[in-house]
Protein backbone atom coordinates (compact mmCIF):
# COMPACT_ATOMS: atom_id res chain seq x y z
CA UNK A 1 0.00 0.00 0.00
CA UNK A 2 1.15 3.57 -0.75
CA UNK A 3 2.40 5.61 2.17
CA UNK A 4 -0.33 7.57 3.92
CA UNK A 5 0.86 11.00 2.91
CA UNK A 6 1.26 10.01 -0.73
CA UNK A 7 -2.16 8.37 -0.71
CA UNK A 8 -3.77 11.47 0.73
CA UNK A 9 -2.02 13.72 -1.77
CA UNK A 10 -2.96 11.51 -4.70
CA UNK A 11 -6.62 11.41 -3.63
CA UNK A 12 -6.71 15.17 -3.29
CA UNK A 13 -5.09 15.67 -6.68
CA UNK A 14 -7.65 13.35 -8.25
CA UNK A 15 -10.32 15.60 -6.76
CA UNK A 16 -8.70 18.57 -8.46
CA UNK A 17 -6.60 20.00 -5.64
CA UNK A 18 -3.69 21.76 -7.32
CA UNK A 19 -1.96 22.64 -4.06
CA UNK A 20 -1.57 18.96 -3.33
CA UNK A 21 -0.03 18.46 -6.75
CA UNK A 22 2.47 21.21 -5.99
CA UNK A 23 3.30 19.51 -2.70
CA UNK A 24 3.84 16.21 -4.48
CA UNK A 25 6.09 17.80 -7.08
CA UNK A 26 8.17 19.53 -4.42
CA UNK A 27 8.47 16.31 -2.48
CA UNK A 28 9.85 14.28 -5.40
CA UNK A 29 11.41 16.82 -7.74
CA UNK A 30 14.96 16.47 -6.42
CA UNK A 31 14.95 12.68 -6.63
CA UNK A 32 13.37 12.58 -10.07
CA UNK A 33 15.71 15.26 -11.37
CA UNK A 34 18.78 13.52 -9.93
CA UNK A 35 17.85 10.16 -11.41
CA UNK A 36 17.34 11.73 -14.82
CA UNK A 37 20.59 13.68 -14.48
CA UNK A 38 22.41 10.44 -13.76
CA UNK A 39 20.91 8.90 -16.90
CA UNK A 40 21.16 11.70 -19.47
CA UNK A 41 24.10 13.71 -18.13
CA UNK A 42 22.85 17.05 -19.42
CA UNK A 43 21.24 19.52 -17.04
CA UNK A 44 18.99 21.15 -19.63
CA UNK A 45 17.73 17.81 -20.86
CA UNK A 46 17.26 16.60 -17.29
CA UNK A 47 15.20 19.68 -16.48
CA UNK A 48 13.06 19.22 -19.56
CA UNK A 49 12.48 15.52 -18.98
CA UNK A 50 11.75 16.04 -15.28
CA UNK A 51 9.05 18.57 -16.12
CA UNK A 52 7.58 16.16 -18.64
CA UNK A 53 7.52 13.39 -16.01
CA UNK A 54 5.34 15.45 -13.70
CA UNK A 55 3.08 16.53 -16.53
CA UNK A 56 2.51 12.84 -17.28
CA UNK A 57 1.95 12.10 -13.61
CA UNK A 58 -0.78 14.72 -13.52
CA UNK A 59 -2.40 13.59 -16.76
CA UNK A 60 -2.39 9.88 -15.94
CA UNK A 61 -2.87 9.95 -12.19
CA UNK A 62 -6.38 8.61 -12.67
CA UNK A 63 -4.80 5.31 -13.81
CA UNK A 64 -2.83 4.90 -10.56
CA UNK A 65 -4.89 2.57 -8.38
CA UNK A 66 -2.68 2.55 -5.27
CA UNK A 67 -1.79 -1.15 -5.45
CA UNK A 68 1.90 -0.23 -5.37
CA UNK A 69 3.78 2.62 -3.76
CA UNK A 70 3.32 5.92 -5.53
CA UNK A 71 7.05 6.41 -5.95
CA UNK A 72 7.30 2.98 -7.69
CA UNK A 73 4.88 4.25 -10.31
CA UNK A 74 6.63 7.62 -10.46
CA UNK A 75 10.07 6.11 -10.96
CA UNK A 76 8.77 3.80 -13.67
CA UNK A 77 7.52 6.82 -15.57
CA UNK A 78 10.88 8.49 -14.96
CA UNK A 79 12.84 5.51 -16.25
CA UNK A 80 10.62 5.19 -19.33
CA UNK A 81 11.10 8.86 -20.14
CA UNK A 82 14.88 8.45 -19.80
CA UNK A 83 14.83 5.43 -22.09
CA UNK A 84 12.78 7.37 -24.66
CA UNK A 85 15.24 10.22 -24.46
CA UNK A 86 18.18 7.88 -24.90
CA UNK A 87 16.52 6.15 -27.85
CA UNK A 88 16.78 9.34 -29.81
CA UNK A 89 13.37 10.91 -29.30
CA UNK A 90 15.31 13.97 -28.34
CA UNK A 91 17.96 15.89 -30.26
CA UNK A 92 21.44 14.53 -29.54
CA UNK A 93 23.59 16.98 -27.65
CA UNK A 94 27.26 16.61 -26.87
CA UNK A 95 27.48 15.57 -23.26
CA UNK A 96 28.68 18.28 -20.99
CA UNK A 97 30.64 17.42 -17.93
CA UNK A 98 28.61 18.27 -14.89
CA UNK A 99 31.50 18.53 -12.58
CA UNK A 100 34.07 20.54 -14.48
CA UNK A 101 33.70 24.30 -14.50
CA UNK A 102 34.88 25.94 -17.72
CA UNK A 103 36.36 29.28 -18.66
CA UNK A 104 34.94 31.69 -21.25
CA UNK A 105 36.32 29.60 -24.10
CA UNK A 106 34.78 26.41 -22.76
CA UNK A 107 38.08 24.91 -21.65
CA UNK A 108 37.69 22.92 -18.46
CA UNK A 109 39.35 24.76 -15.64
CA UNK A 110 40.74 21.53 -14.33
CA UNK A 111 43.01 21.36 -17.34
CA UNK A 112 44.31 24.87 -16.71
CA UNK A 113 45.05 24.49 -13.04
CA UNK A 114 48.28 22.88 -11.88
CA UNK A 115 47.64 19.16 -11.37
CA UNK A 116 45.66 18.88 -8.18
CA UNK A 117 46.77 16.34 -5.65
CA UNK A 118 43.54 14.45 -4.74
CA UNK A 119 45.05 13.79 -1.35
CA UNK A 120 44.77 17.47 -0.54
CA UNK A 121 41.12 17.73 -1.48
CA UNK A 122 38.31 16.90 0.88
CA UNK A 123 35.58 14.63 -0.52
CA UNK A 124 33.05 17.47 -0.24
CA UNK A 125 34.91 19.42 -2.88
CA UNK A 126 35.15 16.66 -5.41
CA UNK A 127 32.41 18.02 -7.70
CA UNK A 128 34.98 20.37 -9.14
CA UNK A 129 37.82 17.99 -9.59
CA UNK A 130 38.99 15.53 -12.13
CA UNK A 131 37.78 12.61 -9.99
CA UNK A 132 34.16 13.79 -10.18
CA UNK A 133 34.48 14.10 -13.95
CA UNK A 134 36.03 10.66 -14.21
CA UNK A 135 33.25 9.17 -12.11
CA UNK A 136 30.65 10.87 -14.28
CA UNK A 137 32.27 9.46 -17.41
CA UNK A 138 32.56 6.01 -15.82
CA UNK A 139 28.87 5.98 -14.86
CA UNK A 140 27.96 7.10 -18.36
CA UNK A 141 29.98 4.28 -19.88
CA UNK A 142 28.08 1.59 -17.97
CA UNK A 143 25.67 -0.56 -19.98
CA UNK A 144 22.15 0.85 -19.81
CA UNK A 145 20.69 -1.77 -17.43
CA UNK A 146 23.57 -1.48 -14.99
CA UNK A 147 23.50 2.29 -15.14
CA UNK A 148 19.84 2.72 -14.37
CA UNK A 149 19.99 0.20 -11.52
CA UNK A 150 23.06 1.87 -10.04
CA UNK A 151 21.69 5.41 -10.38
CA UNK A 152 18.34 4.46 -8.88
CA UNK A 153 20.00 2.82 -5.89
CA UNK A 154 22.47 5.61 -5.20
CA UNK A 155 19.91 8.41 -5.51
CA UNK A 156 17.06 6.98 -3.52
CA UNK A 157 18.26 4.13 -1.29
CA UNK A 158 15.39 1.93 -2.42
CA UNK A 159 15.45 -1.64 -1.17
CA UNK A 160 16.16 -4.37 -3.69
CA UNK A 161 12.53 -5.39 -3.48
CA UNK A 162 11.32 -1.89 -4.31
CA UNK A 163 13.84 -1.59 -7.11
CA UNK A 164 12.70 -4.86 -8.62
CA UNK A 165 9.18 -3.42 -8.81
CA UNK A 166 10.36 -0.19 -10.38
CA UNK A 167 12.63 -1.90 -12.90
CA UNK A 168 10.33 -4.85 -13.55
CA UNK A 169 12.97 -7.50 -12.91
CA UNK A 170 13.67 -10.06 -10.16
CA UNK A 171 15.58 -9.07 -7.02
CA UNK A 172 18.40 -11.38 -8.01
CA UNK A 173 18.84 -9.38 -11.20
CA UNK A 174 18.95 -6.14 -9.20
CA UNK A 175 21.66 -7.58 -6.93
CA UNK A 176 23.67 -8.84 -9.86
CA UNK A 177 23.47 -5.57 -11.78
CA UNK A 178 24.54 -3.53 -8.77
CA UNK A 179 27.45 -5.86 -8.12
CA UNK A 180 28.60 -5.65 -11.75
CA UNK A 181 28.13 -1.89 -11.95
CA UNK A 182 30.23 -1.35 -8.82
CA UNK A 183 32.94 -3.73 -10.00
CA UNK A 184 33.19 -1.86 -13.28
CA UNK A 185 33.33 1.50 -11.59
CA UNK A 186 35.96 0.27 -9.15
CA UNK A 187 38.08 -0.90 -12.03
CA UNK A 188 37.76 2.31 -13.99
CA UNK A 189 38.42 4.54 -11.00
CA UNK A 190 41.07 2.35 -9.43
CA UNK A 191 44.03 4.77 -9.82
CA UNK A 192 42.06 7.60 -8.19
CA UNK A 193 40.62 5.45 -5.44
CA UNK A 194 44.08 4.14 -4.61
CA UNK A 195 45.29 7.70 -4.13
CA UNK A 196 42.42 8.45 -1.78
CA UNK A 197 43.17 5.35 0.24
CA UNK A 198 46.74 6.41 0.83
CA UNK A 199 45.37 9.50 2.46
Amino acid sequence: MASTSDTVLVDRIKSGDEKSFQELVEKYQARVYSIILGMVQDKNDADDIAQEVFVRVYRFLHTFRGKSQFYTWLYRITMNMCINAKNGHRREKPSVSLSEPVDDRGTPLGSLLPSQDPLQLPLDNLTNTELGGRLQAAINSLPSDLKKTFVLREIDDLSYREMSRVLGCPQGTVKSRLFRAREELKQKLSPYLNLLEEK
Partner: protein
Amino acid sequence: MRCKQARKYLSEYLDQELPSRLCRRIESHLETCADCAQEYLKLKAIRALTRNILIENPGPHFYNQVSSRLRESKSTRFVQKRRLLGAWSLIPVSTKALVTAGLAFLLFFTLVYPHLVTPTLPIEDFQQEYVRSRDVLPWGEQPSATIISFHSGRG
Protein backbone atom coordinates in the same frame (compact mmCIF):
# COMPACT_ATOMS: atom_id res chain seq x y z
CA MET B 1 34.96 -16.68 5.74
CA ARG B 2 37.25 -16.54 2.72
CA CYS B 3 38.02 -13.38 0.79
CA LYS B 4 36.39 -14.59 -2.42
CA GLN B 5 33.13 -15.23 -0.59
CA ALA B 6 33.28 -11.99 1.39
CA ARG B 7 33.87 -9.88 -1.74
CA LYS B 8 30.90 -11.50 -3.40
CA TYR B 9 28.69 -10.05 -0.64
CA LEU B 10 30.28 -6.62 -0.22
CA SER B 11 27.83 -4.90 -2.56
CA GLU B 12 24.81 -6.27 -0.66
CA TYR B 13 26.52 -5.53 2.63
CA LEU B 14 26.94 -1.91 1.57
CA ASP B 15 23.21 -1.78 0.77
CA GLN B 16 22.31 -3.49 4.11
CA GLU B 17 20.46 -6.21 2.25
CA LEU B 18 22.10 -9.17 3.99
CA PRO B 19 20.63 -11.21 6.82
CA SER B 20 22.12 -10.14 10.16
CA ARG B 21 24.05 -13.38 10.65
CA LEU B 22 25.84 -12.99 7.33
CA CYS B 23 26.44 -9.31 8.11
CA ARG B 24 28.28 -10.24 11.29
CA ARG B 25 30.45 -12.72 9.42
CA ILE B 26 31.33 -10.08 6.84
CA GLU B 27 32.11 -7.56 9.56
CA SER B 28 34.42 -9.88 11.40
CA HIS B 29 36.17 -10.73 8.14
CA LEU B 30 36.65 -7.04 7.33
CA GLU B 31 38.17 -6.51 10.75
CA THR B 32 40.84 -9.07 10.04
CA CYS B 33 41.44 -8.69 6.30
CA ALA B 34 43.02 -5.42 5.16
CA ASP B 35 42.56 -6.16 1.44
CA CYS B 36 38.84 -6.80 1.71
CA ALA B 37 38.50 -3.76 3.97
CA GLN B 38 40.14 -1.69 1.22
CA GLU B 39 37.69 -3.04 -1.35
CA TYR B 40 34.80 -2.11 0.90
CA LEU B 41 36.18 1.40 1.38
CA LYS B 42 36.37 1.79 -2.39
CA LEU B 43 32.68 0.94 -2.67
CA LYS B 44 31.88 3.48 0.04
CA ALA B 45 33.96 6.12 -1.71
CA ILE B 46 32.18 5.51 -5.01
CA ARG B 47 28.84 5.85 -3.26
CA ALA B 48 29.82 9.11 -1.57
CA LEU B 49 31.20 10.57 -4.80
CA THR B 50 28.16 9.53 -6.81
CA ARG B 51 25.77 11.15 -4.38
CA ASN B 52 27.91 14.24 -4.32
CA ILE B 53 27.79 14.76 -8.06
CA LEU B 54 24.34 13.45 -8.91
CA ILE B 55 22.01 14.57 -6.16
CA GLU B 56 20.83 18.02 -7.10
CA ASN B 57 17.72 20.09 -6.99
CA PRO B 58 16.21 21.44 -10.15
CA GLY B 59 15.90 25.22 -10.33
CA PRO B 60 13.76 27.21 -7.87
CA HIS B 61 11.01 27.76 -10.44
CA PHE B 62 10.61 24.10 -11.30
CA TYR B 63 7.00 23.83 -10.18
CA ASN B 64 6.04 26.98 -12.11
CA GLN B 65 7.59 25.47 -15.24
CA VAL B 66 5.66 22.23 -14.72
CA SER B 67 2.51 24.22 -14.19
CA SER B 68 2.87 26.26 -17.40
CA ARG B 69 3.70 23.13 -19.33
CA LEU B 70 0.49 21.56 -18.05
CA ARG B 71 -1.54 24.59 -19.06
CA GLU B 72 0.06 24.52 -22.51
CA SER B 73 -0.70 20.84 -23.01
CA LYS B 74 -4.32 21.33 -21.90
CA SER B 75 -4.81 24.22 -24.31
CA THR B 76 -3.05 22.30 -27.12
CA ARG B 77 -5.47 19.40 -26.76
CA PHE B 78 -8.40 21.80 -26.60
CA VAL B 79 -7.21 23.57 -29.74
CA GLN B 80 -6.79 20.25 -31.58
CA LYS B 81 -10.37 19.25 -30.75
CA ARG B 82 -11.63 22.63 -31.86
CA ARG B 83 -9.71 22.32 -35.13
CA LEU B 84 -11.23 18.93 -35.86
CA LEU B 85 -14.72 20.22 -35.18
CA GLY B 86 -13.93 23.33 -37.17
CA ALA B 87 -12.74 21.31 -40.17
CA TRP B 88 -15.93 19.22 -40.09
CA SER B 89 -18.11 22.31 -40.06
CA LEU B 90 -16.38 23.64 -43.20
CA ILE B 91 -17.38 20.60 -45.27
CA PRO B 92 -20.53 21.22 -47.42
CA VAL B 93 -23.75 19.68 -46.12
CA SER B 94 -24.20 17.51 -49.20
CA THR B 95 -20.74 15.99 -48.79
CA LYS B 96 -21.36 15.37 -45.09
CA ALA B 97 -24.65 13.65 -45.96
CA LEU B 98 -22.91 11.51 -48.60
CA VAL B 99 -20.13 10.48 -46.24
CA THR B 100 -22.56 9.67 -43.44
CA ALA B 101 -24.82 7.68 -45.78
CA GLY B 102 -21.87 5.79 -47.21
CA LEU B 103 -20.66 4.81 -43.77
CA ALA B 104 -24.13 3.74 -42.71
CA PHE B 105 -24.51 1.68 -45.92
CA LEU B 106 -21.18 -0.03 -45.37
CA LEU B 107 -21.94 -0.83 -41.75
CA PHE B 108 -25.37 -2.18 -42.60
CA PHE B 109 -24.21 -4.56 -45.32
CA THR B 110 -21.19 -5.84 -43.42
CA LEU B 111 -22.69 -6.22 -39.97
CA VAL B 112 -26.48 -6.39 -40.20
CA TYR B 113 -27.53 -7.76 -43.61
CA PRO B 114 -25.85 -11.21 -43.33
CA HIS B 115 -28.03 -11.92 -40.28
CA LEU B 116 -31.26 -10.89 -42.02
CA VAL B 117 -31.04 -13.07 -45.15
CA THR B 118 -32.28 -16.71 -44.89
CA PRO B 119 -29.97 -19.19 -46.65
CA THR B 120 -31.62 -21.18 -49.53
CA LEU B 121 -30.80 -24.72 -50.74
CA PRO B 122 -29.80 -25.12 -54.43
CA ILE B 123 -32.66 -27.59 -55.24
CA GLU B 124 -32.19 -27.62 -59.04
CA ASP B 125 -28.52 -28.55 -58.70
CA PHE B 126 -29.47 -31.33 -56.32
CA GLN B 127 -32.07 -32.69 -58.77
CA GLN B 128 -29.67 -32.73 -61.69
CA GLU B 129 -27.07 -34.57 -59.65
CA TYR B 130 -29.66 -37.17 -58.59
CA VAL B 131 -30.75 -37.89 -62.16
CA ARG B 132 -27.14 -38.16 -63.32
CA SER B 133 -26.38 -40.70 -60.62
CA ARG B 134 -29.37 -42.87 -61.70
CA ASP B 135 -27.99 -42.90 -65.26
CA VAL B 136 -24.76 -44.45 -63.99
CA LEU B 137 -26.44 -47.41 -62.18
CA PRO B 138 -27.66 -49.44 -65.30
CA TRP B 139 -24.01 -49.54 -66.55
CA GLY B 140 -23.04 -51.25 -63.29
CA GLU B 141 -25.62 -54.05 -63.71
CA GLN B 142 -24.90 -55.05 -67.33
CA PRO B 143 -21.52 -56.89 -66.98
CA SER B 144 -23.07 -59.21 -64.29
CA ALA B 145 -25.97 -60.17 -66.59
CA THR B 146 -23.52 -61.13 -69.43
CA ILE B 147 -21.44 -63.39 -67.15
CA ILE B 148 -24.54 -65.22 -65.88
CA SER B 149 -25.89 -65.94 -69.42
CA PHE B 150 -22.40 -67.23 -70.57
CA HIS B 151 -22.20 -69.77 -67.78
CA SER B 152 -25.67 -71.01 -68.53
CA GLY B 153 -24.50 -71.87 -72.05
CA ARG B 154 -26.32 -69.23 -73.91
CA GLY B 155 -23.18 -67.04 -74.62
